[in-house]
Structure formats: C-alpha cells, structure tokens
C-alpha cells in the first residue's frame, strides 16, 4: 500500500526554526510550571508504596474464602471451582463433618484442604462464577509477592484470613462447630 506523504508548506517564520523552538519551549515551560506547582497529591503519578490506587468495584484480586457469622467456612467442598479453574490451580480435599451432619439442614462436607497456587492463578474469577454457595470471591488485594514458591501456595486458613484484618474479623485457624442450620443460598 502506497503511503501518501503529506507535504506541509511552512511559512517563513516556521522555516527560521527559531520561532517554533521558542513556542515549543513555552509549551514545555508551561508543563514544568504546572507540574511543579501542583501538590503531590494532585499529580497524575501516584507515589505507589506510600499511596495506593483505589481498585475498581469489579476488581479481581486475591481470593477470600467466605465464612458464616459464627466463623465456619461457607465452602462445601463441591469441587466446582476446581473444575472451572482454567489454570488448574485449586486443590481441594474434602472431609465430612462429625455427627452434626445427621441433623437436617447442616452442611455435610467442608474442605479439609483448600489450596490455591497463586503463581498459577490467572485471576479470572471463574471459581467465583462457578461457586454455588458464594463461598469464594476475588477481592481488592493485588500485592502478592514472596521470596519462595512454597509461600505462594495459599492454604485454607490463608485464604480465609486474607481480608480478616481489613474487615475487622478475627483470624481463625480451626473450624468452629456450626451452631445453627444454614439457610439455602439464594441464587
């Protein structure tokens, strides 16, 4: 394809080259003065570790495994998320509750192991889509870094506590026994 070269006729002032340069210098000076007189909080650049950008409402960041108000996990270890995961980064091992599951209305299963390999995860939120119990969702945290690969494998308690401090919830390290029957989740 031929490229049409657009010939621009310069007038004598532009051809001196001095005048356009001066105009350009005025423009750069205007930028300079505007930027130097702007307060750091109003500039385009966000000084990252000091101030962080607020994430958009639909942002897909680090996962959280939701819990009920009494602290027990919402997940019923149905493996839907593990099946839906395109990156195959979710590992679940299920276990049964004790005698309590004989009572009508209680969950029968819960995950004994719920591992997400954060190095593999592509943050597509397919697990969130697939979950029938709304037990997993992707939230705002995007700062995941570590000095070794092993600590990038987030386990069940990591995932349940990822946003505990932020939400003002207690950090838990063991499954509390559910006290009341769970209502079915409205879809």
């Amino acid at each position, binding site marked *: 394809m031929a490229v049409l070269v657009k010939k621009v006729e310069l007038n004598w002032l532009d051809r001196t080259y001095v005048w356009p*340069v001066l105009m*350009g*210098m005025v423009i*750069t000076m205007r930028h*300079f003065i505007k*930027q130097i007189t702007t307060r750091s909080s109003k*500039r385009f650049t966000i*000084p990252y570790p000091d101030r962080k950008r607020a994430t958009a409402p639909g942002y897909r960041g680090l996962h959280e495994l939701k819990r009920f108000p009494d602290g027990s996990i919402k997940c019923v270890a149905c493996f839907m998320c593990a099946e839906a995961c395109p990156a195959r980064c979710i590992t679940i091992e299920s276990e049964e509750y004790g005698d309590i599951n004989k009572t009508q209305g209680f969950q029968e299963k819960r995950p004994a192991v719920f591992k997400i390999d954060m190095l593999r995860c592509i943050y597509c939120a397919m697990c969130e889509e697939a979950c029938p119990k709304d037990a997993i969702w992707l939230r705002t945290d995007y700062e995941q870094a570590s000095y070794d690969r092993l600590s990038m494998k987030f386990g069940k308690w990591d995932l349940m506590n990822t946003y505990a401090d932020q939400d003002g919830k207690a950090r838990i390290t063991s499954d509390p026994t559910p006290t009341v029957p769970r209502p079915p989740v409205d879809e």
Partner: protein
Amino acid sequence: MESLASLLHLMPETFWMIVKVFIVFLGPLTLAALLTWGERRGSAMIQDRIGPNRALLFGRWRLLGLPQLAADGIKFFLKEDLVPTDASGMLFWLAPVLAFVPAVLGFAVIPFGRSFSQGGHVFHLSLLDPGNGMGMLYPLAIGAVAVYGILTAAWSSNNKWSILGGMRSAAQMVSYEIAMGLAVLAIFVRTGGYDPQQIIAAQSGMWNVLPQIIGFLVFFTCMFAETNRLPFDFAEGESEIVAGFHTEYGSMKFALLQLSEYLHIVTAAALIVTLYFGGWRVPFVAEPSVPLSVAAFVVKLVFFCWVFIWVRWTIPRFRFDQLMFLGWKVMLPLGLGNLLLQAWLMHRGA
C-alpha cells in the same frame, strides 16, 4: 585577606590563587553534579512526571530527591569496573581522563565577578588574570580538545556503536567549530580584543546579545553541538547506537564521562554569559559591588544551564544529515554573514 595570607605564610597573590583554584575547580564541579539532579527532576516536571525522589538521607530526609546524587555517587564507586576483553586497555583507561580534564580546564579564564583591590593589590575573580595572552581563545581551544576524550573512548572500546558515535562526534565537531569561531570572531572585532575582561567591559552599555543576535543564535546552537547535548547528541545517540561512545563504560569511568558532559554545559553557559550577556554585569547598575557581581554571574550561569536542560527536553533530536546540513549550509553562512555585517557596521562607524 592580607591577614589570612600571612597566617598561612603566603603572599596575598599566592593565597588568592589557591582560593581561586578551589573555587574554579569545585564550583563548576558542584554545579555539574547539581545539574544531573536538575536534569532528572526538571525533565520529569516538564513531562508531567515526578522524577527520582525515593532516595532518603539517613533513611529520613527526602530533600527533593537530592540524596539521589549521593546514592548514585556511592553506586558508581562501588560497582564492578568492567573492561571488555577486546578493548585497548591503556586507552580505555585514559579516555575518561582525557574527557574530564579539558572539561574542568575550560572554566579557568572566565571572570566570575568584578576585580577588586585591597591593600595595594588588585585581585581578579578569574583563575587566569587578564592580559594572559590567551583570553577567550583558551576555552575555545580547550573545547576543541574535548573531542579527543570522546574519540579515544570510542576507538578504545572496540565496539561498533562506540566507533560510530566517535566518528559522528568528530564530524560534528568539525562542522560546528568554524561557525562558532566566526560568531565569536564578530565579538572580538566589535570589542577590539579577545580578553574576557575587555569583552565584559565593552558590554557596559548594552549586552552583546542585542546587537549580535544572529551571532548569538549561531553560537548558542553550536554550544549544543559542542556539549554533545540533544538535539545534537550524535556521539551518544541512545535511540540508535545504544549509548554511543560510552557504551562499554561502567562504574566510575562512566561517571567521569557523564560528569564531563555536564561540566561542558557549565562551561558553555559561562561562555554564553561572558560573551553575550555581560558576564558579571548587572542591568541598570553601572558598577556593582563584588558580591553582587558574583551573584549576578551565578544567576545567569544557572539560568543558561537550565536553558540547556530546557531545550533538551523540548526539541526532538536531529538526523545526522540534518545536522550536517545545518552546520555547513546554515550556520556557516550565518556566521560569515554576521561577521561581514559587523565589519560593515564598524566601517560605517556605527
């Protein structure tokens, strides 16, 4: 000053000379170091960025990013000093020195303030006293020597990019020195001498920039070529030949090359101030006091250093053939025409 000199068992002249050596050596060096900061922060502001501001002094004070200078200095000293195996060892070591020494020398003849007399002695505020026989020819000659540092660095690196940069630098120097010389010649003709003190004395009524505006433009443009700055940074040419003549340089050797570039900016600004903007003269003050004259010189000097940075971040770089065109077909005729014009005006008695 007499008492200070006698305290050190020195003649006042000797003492003053030592003081001047310190001023002339450390002053431009400090300014050049500050220019690296000014360049990075200034260019950032021009481009709506922020620039380096993370380095902290003692982990606490940010000071507008100035600790970055110290951090860079420490880094340059502590980095591994890498010499390519195929580089010419001796010349590779010599090149940064060859670039640095002329850059430091250039400032020696510039008067940075009014001369004053005390106790029967006249003290001049320039390292080389007036009437030394070299005058303004000295910084121009030193500036021409500076290209050897670049050429040596380029040849000794044994690198394609380096050699390209060095060749370009030499060609650029040839095509601009003549126009620059002609522009300065017009000033010598008008002044009737080439001593910086004479040139400044001749600018007491009006600064040279007004009657010699064409000469100023030619000289100013040539100074950009002389300092190897954008828009004429063909020796470095980082957008096409990696880093040009200092591609293979690292650690303190690179720092010396870089520092000499900034020293050239300081010297070039000092030359512009002396030749065209009245040196230490203050507008509307006939005979300024010594501190005022020094302050005026420093203000002008810093302003023109800033103009070098300002222009660099305004204009895109030239193509090499455009530079040649500009040098030979625009600058040279303009310089010649300016010289003829001034000669004609003098003949008319204007």
